[in-house]
């Protein structure tokens, strides 16, 4: 028993040495599920953008929607960075998509709601983690070229280094006025990087060679009311997260509540 332990210790330290010395990006990514290393399947994450997911109201560009605070809004485009996916089996990290940055968007030119992982180890997953935005290490240097991080879509600030995490452009008017004003919600800053951890109510099972999809509903309405009621006029419709302040804190908390897991198949 003792000798087994020492062999184990030697193996462990060798393993640690290997871990310290080696440092390829690929070593840590796609870690196979220790319970099942037989093969991989395809997993698509689907972000379905709604104005009101609960009521089943889709978001259409330039349509008028009303928030519970009584503001009327139209959306001409919405974009956000989704990044750093991790799938968990219990407490174990079972699959990690390192350096994965994806732009989800609905604009006049393009709709993109699917993120595809071609080789997810087959197995059972109980929790999923992802981020809205770009992690601080990568947010402080523009132009790293990692994942889909790109400077070609207006999702960054050039004079105040950093990516815009979520960008919604459109118009709004308050109450009984029908005088439309520009609406610009541009979030960013390391302080407002949002990590979401979502327990999967029904476990997500990826089978070898399977083609699976996990559906998320994204409710834009929540941005204005869950849980903090937002009056867009408080900031004259210009919600630009240049620096930390209470109004942005409130909206950012709401933004973290836009994402709801619906089901996996």
């Amino acid at each position, binding site marked *: 028993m003792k000798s087994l332990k020492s062999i184990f210790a030697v193996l462990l330290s060798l393993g640690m040495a290997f871990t310290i010395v080696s440092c390829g990006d690929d070593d840590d990514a796609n870690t196979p599920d220790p319970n099942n290393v037989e093969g991989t399947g395809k997993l698509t994450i689907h972000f379905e953008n709604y104005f009101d997911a609960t009521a089943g109201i889709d978001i259409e560009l330039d349509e008028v929607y009303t928030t519970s605070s009584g503001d009327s809004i139209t959306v001409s485009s919405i974009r956000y960075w989704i990044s750093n996916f991790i799938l968990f089996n219990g407490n174990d990290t079972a699959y990690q998509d390192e350096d994965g940055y994806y732009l989800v968007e609905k604009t006049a030119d393009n709709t993109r709601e699917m993120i595809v992982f071609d080789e997810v180890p087959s197995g059972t997953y109980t929790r999923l983690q992802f981020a809205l935005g770009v992690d601080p290490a990568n947010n*402080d240097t523009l132009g*790293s070229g990692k994942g889909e991080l*790109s400077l070609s879509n207006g999702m960054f600030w*050039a*004079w*105040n*280094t*950093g990516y815009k995490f979520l960008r919604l452009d459109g118009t709004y008017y308050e109450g009984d006025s029908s005088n439309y004003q520009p609406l610009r919600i541009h979030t960013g800053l390391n302080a407002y990087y949002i990590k979401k951890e979502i327990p999967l109510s029904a476990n997500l099972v990826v089978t070898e060679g399977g083609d699976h999809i996990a559906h998320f509903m994204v409710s834009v309405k929540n941005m204005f009311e869950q849980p903090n009621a937002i009056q867009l006029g408080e900031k004259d419709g210009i919600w630009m997260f*240049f*620096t930390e302040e209470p109004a942005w804190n409130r909206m950012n908390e709401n933004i973290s509540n836009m994402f709801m897991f619906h089901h996996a198949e």
Partner: protein
Amino acid sequence: MNKYLNHIGIFILALIIFSCRENNEPLPQEEIFVVEVPSNFEDLPVPESNEFSKEKIELGRLLFYDPILSGNNQVSCASCHIQSKAFTDGDALTRRGVSGEALLRHTPALINLAWMPGLFWEGGAKNIESLALGPIGHPDEMNQDIVELVKELNEDSEYPLFFQNAFGPGDIELTQVLKALAQFQRTLISGDSRYDKYIRNEDGVTFSMQELNGLSLYEEHCSSCHSGFLFTDNAFHNNGIDSSWNDISNEFIFTGRYRITFDSADLGKYKTPTLRNIALTAPYMHDGRFESLEEVLKHYSTQVKYSPSLDEHFKNEDGSYGIPLSEEEKRDIIAFLNSLTDEEFISNQRFSSPK
């Protein structure tokens, strides 16, 4: 001649051996490149993600001087950052950009940027790699669409080869443009002025009585902000040139550091500019409002305006503001400031146009 002592070659070599490169391929031996630093300077900070190579520095220089970076292919970085003026342009608010409109800030000099944690007058750019996106994209500066720029470079008859020599095979990417530009700018090191030679006991350089007096006045009155071997503390101060900041147009550009922090204590604060080569970089302040060093010292001695964010150094015990200086003291300070001019910096061929 041992004026350059702090070679960082070993440090770079160590980084190359032990750090992890994205492509997991060892660097070829010839890429190891030593950037020399004056012996009275601290070591040169080099980001792991953008280690020096001769090819990348050269490519950065080529890009810096090439108007291909601008929307109309007529304006380069060097249009406003002119070597003979320590990489500024002599205008208060330049009209050398694509639109011909006056910019809202004075062209900052490019001197010892490698040691500078925040770039631009209010420190908004976090590193030199990210900095170039500001001027490249600004409609009045280079007005370039960055997707278009990368396309143009890839279609150029020469650049694809230069980029492959520097970064390896593949199409040109924007990140490579930013890295190469940053490498060249990190080499713009100025530390060979008469002052430097004087404190290094080099070439028999001595100071006149006037310069010595200016040096001691500088140490007493100026060195709290214009500190250290960089002659700047790289921090932000309100030096009393304005007292109210009600104009929030142009994304708060007229509010100084407040634009980044939205903290009222930062209203009207701008980054301390280096005093190195100061005789070459007139006019002065973030908007070039003072034409001469005489005007600057006149401001500091009698014109400092109070506001809540005014720097403590300008508040006197008797309730007055500013740094009282006699006319003779001002002349002595200017004599000292002139000793900070680095003729080698403005004539070094490695910093000049490659064409």
